[in-house]
């Protein structure tokens, strides 16, 4: 009965009414995340195949030079993850690397575990900071004691695919102007529960596909802290990372400002553990979303202003992010109000049709991800398709609510300055200096 009425309602709509009723989908989300991604991917995939020889040339150059690569892993209370990480590194196809671990004032047995691994030769340099200084300070400590020509920054709760280091370095040998390369981040604990499965789909869409598309368009705005490679000379010019949270997005913009390209390499794979509870996931996203306001809207707003150093791609990288995440976050609340005013009796149909439209969009995005990543996907990754019907609820309601709350709290209270992610001594200075 409901389905009959729903079909009746849809068929009664002219194309113009259809767009008017569902403008957020047709005019914005479908255009940006389905249509644009589709256009880019259908060009990218064949081009990648056609340019295989360029990747091979880059690989040859890499092995001819065999530069030392420093894998740096800053973290607090991450000792339990380090043995698995060290193990995955020991099996890398590219062998000329050093592993530098910095313990940022852990109060568990991280130091004991790492010292033992250091004795076994699985860690090349272990530095323990007795006093916690925050992620940026730990990353900078690791950078200070690294010796490699390239720096690969990893999160401790990650492990790499066997050819990951080799693959993430290839772009540096294809374009001298590349300053940093983002590696792909996949969910290691996807099969844990529904929360991790939903994030696994989200990562395939937003990181694997989304960042590949942004990279192709020249507007990649973030290199994940979980998996990113940097040229040493570039990091030296920047003197490493600035105070976070959101230091990975911050340093990406700083590299762009120096005039370097930043790209995403979807075949350099890192598997990371994601939150297994909605509550913890909400906290994580609350922190991530606030950093968008703090860094893009406040710290790097100069990118948006006309100046001698103005760069269109840098402008678009920041503007696209601010527009689609911040500005359009408000569209949903405007849309809901609009629908209530126009015809509240249709709200049920509107919700259902939106759900179907976004579900179909997600199916298309998932198929695009499968096409893009097919050689690196496992059978269990394809099985994630069964959870696609839940994605519109997950992204449309859960993540949107968290994001809206994060923006409001950051705009009004500057909540990121009170985040325990940084020690208060650092946050206090950051707040005073309006960093």
């Amino acid at each position, binding site marked *: 009965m409901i389905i009959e009425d729903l079909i009746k309602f849809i068929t009664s709509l002219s194309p113009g009414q259809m767009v008017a009723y569902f403008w957020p989908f047709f005019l914005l989300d479908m255009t940006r995340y389905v249509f644009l991604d589709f256009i880019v991917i259908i060009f990218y995939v064949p081009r990648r195949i056609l340019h295989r020889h360029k990747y091979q040339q880059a690989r040859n150059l890499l092995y001819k030079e065999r530069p030392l690569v420093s894998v740096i892993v800053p973290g607090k209370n991450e000792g339990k993850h380090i043995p698995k990480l060290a193990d995955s590194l020991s099996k890398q196809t590219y062998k000329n690397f050093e592993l530098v671990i910095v313990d940022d004032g852990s109060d568990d047995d991280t130091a004991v575990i790492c010292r033992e691994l250091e004795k076994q030769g699985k860690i090349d340099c272990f*530095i*323990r*900071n007795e006093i916690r*200084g925050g992620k940026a300070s730990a990353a*900078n*400590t690791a950078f*200070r004691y690294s010796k490699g020509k390239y720096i690969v920054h990893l999160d401790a709760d990650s492990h790499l695919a066997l050819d990951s280091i080799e693959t993430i370095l290839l772009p540096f040998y294809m374009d001298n102007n590349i300053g940093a390369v983002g590696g792909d981040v996949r969910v290691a604990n996807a099969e844990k529960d529904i929360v991790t499965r939903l994030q696994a789909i989200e990562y395939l869409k937003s990181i694997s596909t989304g960042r590949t598309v942004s990279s192709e368009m020249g507007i990649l705005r973030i290199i994940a802290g979980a998996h990113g490679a940097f040229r040493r000379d570039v990091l030296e010019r920047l003197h490493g990372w*600035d105070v976070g949270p959101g230091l990975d997005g911050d340093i990406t913009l700083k590299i762009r400002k120096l005039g370097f390209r930043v790209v995403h390499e979807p075949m350099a794979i890192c598997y990371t553990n994601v939150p297994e509870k909605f509550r913890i996931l909400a906290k994580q996203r609350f922190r991530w979303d606030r950093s968008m306001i703090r860094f893009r809207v406040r710290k790097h707003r100069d990118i948006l202003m006309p100046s001698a150093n103005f760069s269109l791609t840098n402008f678009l990288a920041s503007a696209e992010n601010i527009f689609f995440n911040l500005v359009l976050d408000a569209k949903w609340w405007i849309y809901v109000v609009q629908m209530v005013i126009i015809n509240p009796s249709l709200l049920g149909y509107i919700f259902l049709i939106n759900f179907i439209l976004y579900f179909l969009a997600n199916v298309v995005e998932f198929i695009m991800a499968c096409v893009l990543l097919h050689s690196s996907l496992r059978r269990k990754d394809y099985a994630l398709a069964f959870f696609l019907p839940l994605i519109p609820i997950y992204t449309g309601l859960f993540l949107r609510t968290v994001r809206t709350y994060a923006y409001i709290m950051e705009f009004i209270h500057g909540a990121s300055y009170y985040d325990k992610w940084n020690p208060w001594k650092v946050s206090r200075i950051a707040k005073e*200096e309006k960093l």
Partner: protein
Amino acid sequence: MRQPYYIQSANSEISCAGIQTIAQDELQNINSDDVAYWLIDMRIWTEGWEQLCKIRRNLAPAVYLKPVLFLIDSDTIPQEIVTASDGNIHRSSCDERILEDWVSRVEPINQWIEHLPNAKVGSDANIAFKVLRIITSRNVELEPITTIRRHSGYVYPLLEPMFGKRDTGVLETLAFLESQHLLNGRFISSAHFCSHCGSAFLNFKESCPQCSSDDIRSDELIHHFKCAYTAEMADFRTGDRLVCPKCERELKHIGVDYDKPSIVYHCNQCSHTFQDPKIMTACYNCGRTAEPEHQEARSILAYTVSAIGQNAADYGLDALFTNILDHELHLFSEHAFRDFYRIEMSRIERYKRSTSSLVMIRFHDLDKLYIKLAGKAREVFYELSTIFKTVLRQSDVITAKNETIFFVIMTETSAKHAERAAERLQEGVSALFENNLDFKPAMSVRIREIHPKLDIDAALEDFLENDN
């Protein structure tokens, strides 16, 4: 009334006005009841020290236990020498009143010596016993002092002259006496000693865990809060100021705008960076290098005599080995042994069929074994007694002259068979010590066939005199 005796120096004719003078080799010849203390002239302190050593190494309780005072001229004599005496009299203030005052001050020591049952005629050969007696006689807590003149780093001044060059023997003898509950120890300090030569002079040095070089440097890490820049202090140093290389701000107050999260070491040889330097020790004496856990850590204690110790100081140390053998093998008294010998000799003479042997056994350096083993001596002596028990038969008669000399009548055993038994005994003893203790006490054995013409007293006497 006792009076002081001035010990005549061997190399000079110096004497002390108004005080009886006596030569070193005559100390035993005078009536000890008359002696209040020995007075040693320390004008040439090395000679004075030798005099003291001779006194303390004398075996007669009436000599070595007597109080010794130094007559000193200057304050340049090393501390461990000055404190080795029972007191010091400054030459400038040496008069009759002072000398008499000291007579009364050392009187308790003399009274203690006087009450000993064998003070005048006895001979204390056992060094541990001598140590026990001298501590008991002074009735003080024996405290160590630090010194750079001995490998052991610590000396017990009162005991030093008794031991001479075997300075590590002091600590081991005290440990042995403590293990026997004759002394009570009070913790003073702990120290590491070279496990090779016993020297306390160890250089503890930080070294690179990768290449073991001690050519390393360290620097503090600085974390600048504002820009998160973290590097070594040297990177921040600009003249006498600390300036952040990243944001060019001057660092002002530690804890406010920066802190020092850790210290990092660098090896100048292999360029390794580390925070956990390997600690190594190098012995100044023998040059051996080892990790601290492979050196010997000992507690340095101050000692007082226990109640058991006081009793033992009066009446003698229990002969531990003899006690154990007595319990395990049933030792006969020497008197009973001689009776058995006579019976056995008569039996052999009468039946003219039997052959028995007299076996004389002597362990050398058994006192060293006490010192070396300290608390474990009992266990080893049990092992030793087991070897005796395995080799000897129930029909054999055994007696102990003292802790190191044993006589056995091996009945119905020819000299040849007795020799075999003695060999087995020797092999057993050698195996015990060589395999487990890296120590080999010398053992001598003499076997005589028992016959009517064999004079047991002469045989034993001959063994004791000629086996040295």
